[in-house]
């Protein structure tokens, strides 16, 4: 989705109009509703959104980790040009580990508590790469060293509960890297960790990605986590991508009111104490009955009648590679006019504080 991407022959992974619906007693939950992106090797895509925006369901859809029952899937997911969106369990298992791997939010639940750390790493090596046990042991040791675990040979014999949260996440990363994946998914990899450890883990992921020339998808709720690390950012809201751009472009010319609101609502270190925060009023919509028009419209300070009736498409406008779905974008004359109109009409300017 950037110029460089266009230059490369073929993206590693390309999604087109991916949908994932869940059948529930309440009706069809449109958890992911038409998401497209592509990513090439060596690049990092940050997917940002709040809980319930569909970012985790999206990564599970790509990884084929969703249950079969009560799930309706659509669209196309191409991995190295090969369609995997509707692939069966066997086909996916082949991709797993070798081609793509995942780092989860909570390393404690993702690791098997009654299995030694070493075995958990060698298991996937032996299974996926069909190597000898000795070779797998040797590789595991190297992996632990490369993810920055002190005394790796001792750690190999330990159980997950004997490790700290940061160490466990390092082990998870080692397991994910074991078979040399081309694509690494990191789903909120540092949310459960302390800030100082978070920085270490993010640095580690960065370094490993560069070293192994992997593509990485970093899923997070924190714009700060992706700001310095992702090449491109996709902001999701209520199951859809609302804005997608190279990182610098996104921060320099934020166009979607939700992206702006998300950034504005975070307290910042350089703000004076007791600065009133620009909270987004209300809550994300119910995904069984999403709003007809733009899904953010009910909470949007820029919203006009058109937004409530007609869903804006995700298209690029002035800057190539910068796509957003909005009729009255931030930083454009139309947007300014819409905002002024709403403020004049006294419509609850939800973004500006709420009261």
């Amino acid at each position: 989705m950037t110029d460089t991407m266009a230059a490369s022959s073929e993206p590693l992974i390309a999604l087109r109009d991916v949908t994932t619906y869940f059948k529930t007693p309440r009706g069809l939950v449109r958890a992911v509703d038409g998401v497209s992106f592509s990513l090439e090797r060596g690049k990092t895509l940050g997917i940002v959104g709040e809980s319930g925006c569909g970012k985790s369901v999206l990564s599970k859809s790509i990884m084929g980790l969703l249950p079969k029952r009560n799930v309706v899937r659509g669209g196309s997911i191409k991995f190295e040009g090969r369609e995997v969106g509707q692939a069966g369990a066997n086909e996916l298992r082949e991709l797993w580990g070798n081609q793509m791997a995942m780092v989860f939010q909570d390393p404690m639940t993702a690791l098997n508590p009654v299995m030694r750390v070493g075995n958990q790493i060698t298991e996937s090596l032996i299974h996926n790469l069909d190597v000898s046990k000795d070779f797998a042991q040797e590789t595991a040791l190297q992996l632990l060293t490369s993810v920055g675990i002190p005394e790796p040979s001792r750690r190999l014999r330990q159980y997950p509960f004997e490790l700290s949260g940061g160490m466990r996440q390092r082990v998870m990363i080692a397991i994910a890297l074991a078979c040399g994946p081309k694509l690494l998914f990191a789903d909120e990899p540092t949310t459960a960790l302390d800030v100082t450890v978070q920085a270490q883990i993010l640095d580690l992921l960065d370094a490993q990605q560069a070293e192994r020339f992997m593509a990485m998808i970093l899923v997070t709720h924190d714009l700060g986590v992706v700001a310095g690390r992702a090449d491109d950012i996709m902001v999701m809201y209520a199951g859809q991508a609302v804005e997608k751009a190279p990182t610098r472009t996104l921060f320099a010319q934020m166009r979607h009111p939700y992206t702006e609101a998300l950034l504005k609502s975070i307290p910042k270190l350089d703000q004076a104490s007791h600065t009133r925060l620009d909270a987004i009023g209300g809550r994300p919509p119910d995904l069984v009955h999403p709003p007809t028009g733009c899904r953010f419209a009910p909470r949007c300070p820029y919203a006009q009648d058109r937004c409530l009736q007609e869903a804006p498409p995700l298209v690029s406008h002035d800057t190539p590679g910068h796509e957003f779905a909005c009729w009255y974008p931030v930083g454009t004359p139309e947007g300014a006019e819409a905002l002024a109109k709403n403020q004049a009409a006294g419509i609850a300017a939800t973004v500006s504080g709420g009261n």
Partner: protein
Amino acid sequence: MSVSGAIAPNIQLGAKIKVEKEKRKRLGITGTISAVWLALIGLSALLAPWLPIPSPKQAYIDLVQPDGNAPFSTSGHVLGLDGGGHDMLAQTIHGARVSLQIAFGAVMFGMVVGGFLGLSAGFFKGKVDRFISTLFDIFLAVPALILAMSLVAFLSGSSAQSGFLSIERIMMLALGIVATPPLGRIARASTLTWSEREFVMAARAQGAKNFKIMFIEILPNVLPAMMSIALLSVGVVVVAEGGLSLLGVGVNFTDKPSWGNMIALYAQTDLQLHPWLVFTPIIAVFLTVLSLNNLGDIIRARFDAKETTL
């Protein structure tokens, strides 16, 4: 934080709750059948003396053939007669009276005593917990049937002179004591998890006393877990009561038929010749236990604490 912002989404929430409620109101086919069966068996047990059925002690000896073969169905005896010429329908209904009384009585006893002990153990922890848990362990270490037998023997021995306890009460008490440790342990385990919750700390911070925290805050959350075990226990107690009768310490069949002693007696004497005699009380127990569990599930689903995820 605008109030308008907070209210708007609630319209959707309201719709969602309505759907849930409608769904939960329905009992479903199995639920309805269970409810009907339980109402039927409960009412007929309650009203047995006034129902147009013969006394269970009435023997229609003339209808029994010399070889002890009784006709399965005779006019006026829908479920037939047993070898002694007793009307099976009357036996089953009067049996329900005894069995259900003992089963519910025993389980209630177990719920109250076990619930109280388990709640105390889980709430106060430390020494109280160690004492109560040890008590439970001691009782659980003895095989249930042997424990029940000795309790019945002990209780009937001590009440023989005074006549204070009828055999049903003795059975109720003995089986109730046997049912106490498992129910108590469930209560304890559940209390341990619930008392870790922050709302317990919040109640304490408000100045709530232990008694209030235990019974107002924790108990309602612990009850569902206990209920599911209690409903299962009803079936177990009915069968145990029969087992005790068979060993000669329970309710005597000739005094009062119960489902338990009917199963025990007929299984011994008539299983090959007249299997339906055994099957009648067995089916009654089976349907009752099934219905209780079924309704229990439905009730639990309705009252289960639902919690939002963030």
